[in-house]
């Protein structure tokens, strides 16, 4: 019997994605739990695994956009696993016996299969491993179309090499010249053009949507990090010993934000049509930059978590993000976001809201600056804070109150529910 492989519902507000890479090919035998393909959405890319064992038959090509619930493959579980050493022995001459038609056996292209001239050029220019591409030519050989598609697809998963120009009947000379330049990496090219990956395109659309939907305004403040730094220095050894990981700054800011959100609840809410939804829980998104773009995993019920739990959550997410293993559910449903531009050295910025949230706190670089304390100029480790908020539901006074609360908590951590 054939079992359909459908695109799973991967999270709210996600209706479609792109099958970026098939890890198994049509005709392959797959075991339950084998990764079948990578599904890339505007939020995340995630690996979809086989739910049962059998022979895979794919319905969509790599790079194709798919809807949630769409059937992208079937797994025929009536066929059993091939014998341990199959491929080579299978090719031996079939016995000629009865007059039964046999379906032409689809052979896979071998790694050392000779490549056609155009395929040779493209795999060299695009640094494609021919063995990683499945061929549609005679006996599974690679065609130019196969490797062009592979190059384009790889583009879409974020590897920055120019796409070779496609042949066109239209304006020849300039077109050809551009193609050659971009294809060869643009030694003399003043510009190169490449298609944005689906992820990048979605991020772009999402950001524009955020700008156009909310009335985004940013307010600033600054905080003296001396107290937190001292507290960390004093507690670090014990904390590390006890929890097996370091005490960072982020947990302080999460806790401080929760105190501030409690003081100014609307910032932890959102607009839905004509209603305002107040969230009475604190799921805090922590923005993480990855090679493939910004992702915002969400720390759940942060108000109930210890500093150690928060640090552990953040560390786990960082690893998952780097390895591209974040799941959609890790990224959805946050009520407020904290973004730390300081890790890249940003002194001051205006973060952009993560819809439908109403607020985002921007942390920045800690810098020793001259400040006046008690009538004296002193040197202090200072950080600028920024809060971008949706002015539709939050007034300036509330926004300022939020930042001052954060500032006070950071400058006097005893205000926080310290538990280490």
């Amino acid at each position: 019997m054939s079992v359909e492989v459908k695109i799973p519902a991967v999270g709210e507000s996600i209706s479609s994605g792109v099958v970026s890479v098939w890890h198994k090919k049509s005709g392959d035998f797959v075991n339950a739990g084998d990764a079948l393909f990578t599904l890339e959405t505007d939020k995340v890319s995630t690996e979809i695994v086989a739910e049962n064992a059998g022979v895979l038959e794919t319905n969509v090509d790599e790079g194709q956009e798919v809807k949630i619930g769409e059937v992208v493959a079937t797994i025929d579980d009536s066929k059993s696993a091939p014998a341990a050493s199959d491929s080579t022995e299978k090719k031996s001459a079939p016995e000629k016996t009865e007059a039964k038609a046999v379906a032409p056996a689809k052979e896979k292209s071998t790694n050392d299969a000779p490549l056609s001239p155009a395929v040779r050029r493209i795999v060299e220019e695009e640094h494609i491993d021919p063995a990683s591409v499945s061929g549609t030519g005679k006996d599974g050989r690679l065609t130019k179309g196969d490797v062009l598609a592979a190059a384009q697809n790889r583009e879409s998963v974020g590897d920055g090499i120019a796409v070779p120009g496609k042949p066109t009947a239209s304006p020849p000379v300039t077109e050809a010249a551009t193609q050659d330049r971009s294809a060869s990496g643009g030694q003399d090219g003043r510009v190169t053009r490449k298609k944005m990956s689906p992820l990048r395109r979605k991020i772009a659309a999402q950001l524009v949507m955020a700008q156009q939907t909310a009335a985004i305004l940013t307010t600033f403040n600054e905080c003296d990090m001396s107290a937190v730094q001292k507290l960390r220095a004093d507690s670090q050894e014990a904390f590390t010993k006890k929890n097996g990981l370091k005490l960072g700054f982020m947990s302080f800011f999460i806790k401080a934000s929760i105190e501030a959100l409690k003081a100014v609840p609307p910032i932890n809410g959102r607009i839905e049509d004509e209603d305002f939804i107040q969230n009475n829980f604190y799921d805090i998104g922590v923005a993480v930059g990855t090679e493939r773009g910004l992702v915002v995993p969400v720390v759940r019920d942060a108000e109930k978590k210890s500093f150690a739990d928060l640090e552990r959550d953040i560390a786990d997410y960082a690893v998952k993000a780097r390895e591209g293993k974040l799941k959609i559910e890790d990224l959805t449903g946050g009520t407020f976001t904290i973004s730390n531009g300081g890790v890249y050295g940003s002194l001051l910025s205006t973060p952009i809201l993560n819809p439908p949230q109403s607020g985002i706190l921007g942390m920045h670089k800690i810098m020793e600056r001259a400040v006046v304390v008690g009538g004296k100029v002193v040197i202090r480790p200072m950080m600028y804070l920024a809060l971008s908020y949706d002015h539709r539901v939050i007034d300036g006074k509330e926004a300022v109150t939020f930042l001052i609360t954060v500032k006070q908590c950071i400058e006097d951590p005893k205000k926080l529910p310290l538990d280490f």
Partner: protein
Amino acid sequence: MENFDVVIIGSGPGGYVAAIRAGQLGLKTAIIEKDKELGGTCLNVGCIPSKALLTSSDHFMFAKKEAAKHGIVIDNVNVDLNKMQQRKDKVVKTLTSGVRALMKGNKVTTFEGMGTIVAPGKVSVKSSAGETQEIETKNIIIATGSVPIELPFAKFDGKTIVSSTEALCFTEAPKKFLVIGAGAIGLELGSVWSRLGSEVTTLEFLPRIALGFDLELSNLLQRSLTAQGMTFHLETKVTAVKSENGRVTTTATKGNEEVKFDADKVLVSVGRRPFSEGLGAEKVGIELDDKKRIKIDKNFRTNIEGIYAIGDVIAGPMLAHKAEDEGIACVEIIAGKSGHVNYDAIPGIIYTNPELAGVGLTEDQAQEKKIDICIGKFPFRANGRALANEDPDGMVKFVADAKTDRILGAHILQHAASELIAEAVSVMEFGGSSEDLGRTCHSHPTLSEAVKEAALAVEQRALHIGNR
């Protein structure tokens, strides 16, 4: 009673090649042929004798008209038609006896006579002497081919109203030769007799010649043939053909006008129809389609277990090489292997001068299928070898997929187009792109360089001509 693994009915290129392959695969094989000679239409009254006459008459044209351009002076060029026909017959004889030797060499038993399927697994052969014997077999392959279509108002009389068979055997060039139908056969035989002195007029129902081939190249071919002295009447519907006292009057409508054509001989070359008379197909219940072709599945199986069919008697272009490939695939399937025929890469050729060859989709067909395509063309007047040969007519044209660059079609008009097309077919068989062909080294100076140039032109990078 003898018992075979495979019995093949019909020894044309489909049948005899199937028999060879069956022999190679160790199947006990028999082939049945109703005619005295093996080889079917192709070898006896089709491809081969027509090419013999086309080449002979082309040489005559060279001697008469082209030689002087090369500085060769030949006075009093004449044709000995009798000798020309004898040479043709000798070529046919060599090849048909070659087929006989091949049957022997592959241990194929040959039966002479009319093969009739009595029942699945049972075939009777009725010899010309009237004796009938029955043979038993596990599998039957029907390869009975096709015959010329007869017009109801122009029955073949073998003398004045003729089919291609008789038009290959004229003992003198008819003074006025009328050809009905401007397909491959009409154009080729029209060319032969035009070169040998006939005044040739061709009537075609459609607004173009060479249906199925690239329109642009077909129009160029018509221009060349007209320059050679042939006359074409397109969109002309023949309504009556009357033979009286050795002369034929043909009546046709062109537009709203009625036109009459007087001729010594009329060739009816409006196509061929599948031939399955006397086969017993109906008796055993073999299904035919609406065009009386034998219905098969993708493994060449008819609806009756153990009975297969290939070649002109099934659907598809009526071409010897298509039948051959089907014969091989069919036998391989019978032997439990995986035979296949790639119907997207079957070339077709008209052996006029210049020759017209095509494979895959034409520009028009691709557009009809709404495929986004790129076209690459290269004229032979920009090819060094063509000029050296004094053969500058024609061009190469590629139709490639705009996205993948895969070659979807190739079309060549040239004196040697029939040989040049093979390269494009090979590349297409491997799913190759125009760039693949363009990046393949071609020796210089050759006509094949024009093929490469046209492939390069798909991506606007032909070398020896401006890229628009």
